[in-house]
């Protein structure tokens, strides 16, 4: 089963239709998704700014990691649950959204960035925990994080706009390719 076929199957399920047609649930889930940004990205930004030496420079990095990151994880969990529900409500259009695809790529990169940070940079945090100026690798990870999460927010917001939707044709070939649109060949 292709991903598109899976999304079409998903879109036909009762839950998806109910969510899609609900006048209250969809805005509520969407609002929760947006507001959880403050908890998740907001606190992640605090850690990034600390790593960049731009805020809380007297607070050891491990303090922020142990005391704020649990809250970041709460925010992340809320974002994932509401995000999955938002996708579930509108599967096919979202799957074929350029912005959604860009967002997924950036999410993977952000995850990779966290993984590298945890498994390389942070392992030796004991050596620079209290330094206002953290090692270059830590600052680089923080900068990537800020750029990626900013990009994810912008791309996520843009999913709502239909400029590049598959049902709006003609589109440039590159748009149809990236969005995975199934476009019938022009009539002879």
């Amino acid at each position, binding site marked *: 089963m292709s991903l598109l076929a899976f999304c079409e199957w998903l879109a036909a399920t009762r839950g998806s239709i109910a969510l899609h047609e609900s006048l209250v649930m969809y*805005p509520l889930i*969407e*609002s929760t998704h*947006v*507001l959880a*940004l*403050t*908890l998740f*990205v*907001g*606190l*992640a*930004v*605090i850690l990034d*700014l600390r790593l960049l030496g731009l*805020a*809380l*420079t*007297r*607070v050891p990095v491990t*303090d*922020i990691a142990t*005391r*704020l990151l649990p*809250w970041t994880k709460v925010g992340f969990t809320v974002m994932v649950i509401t995000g999955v529900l938002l996708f579930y409500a509108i599967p096919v259009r979202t799957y074929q959204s350029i912005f959604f695809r860009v967002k997924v790529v950036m999410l993977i990169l952000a995850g990779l960035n966290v993984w590298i940070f945890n498994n390389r940079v942070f392992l030796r945090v004991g050596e620079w925990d209290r330094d206002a100026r953290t090692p270059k690798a830590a600052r680089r990870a923080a900068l990537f994080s800020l750029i990626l*999460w*900013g990009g994810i*927010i*912008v791309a996520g*917001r*843009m999913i*709502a*706009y239909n*400029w590049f939707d598959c049902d709006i044709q003609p589109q440039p070939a590159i748009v149809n390719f990236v969005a995975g649109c199934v476009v019938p060949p022009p009539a002879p």
Partner: protein
Amino acid sequence: MLLPFFEWCEQLWLGQFIVGSNWLFPVIESVHLLGLSVLGGAILVVDMRLLGLGLKNHPVTELARDARPWLIGALVVMIATGIPLFLSESVKCYYSQAFWNKMTALAIGLVFTFTIRARVTETESVGNTARRQAVVGALSLALWFTVAASGRWIGFS
């Protein structure tokens, strides 16, 4: 009574310029959201501390002092992007209950943040008991949550 003012706002060139563009509204709105996440972090790190959560082994005054430039910077971004968004749909806002809820909470939130909350977070005083700190932190969170939630709701109405 205020409707003529809102109608005047909407016909200003900036709002009309945004209305005339496919891209400007979403782009400005995205920056508004980026501001939201920074504002959220700057407020949460202090309010959570006031509630005895998060960085509780550091003094409130230290956290508040470090968060302050980011709080103010984020507020400036939010207002600088919020005004053009408003100008592009002032009349819709006039008829939106969510808009009025947001503006009410925003006005109270700003005054509260720069008076009572500032006094409790930026000065060392024996009067700043744990209970007073918790009340101020909870009120601040409630006010800013109302601003953000009703702000999002403007788009649904």
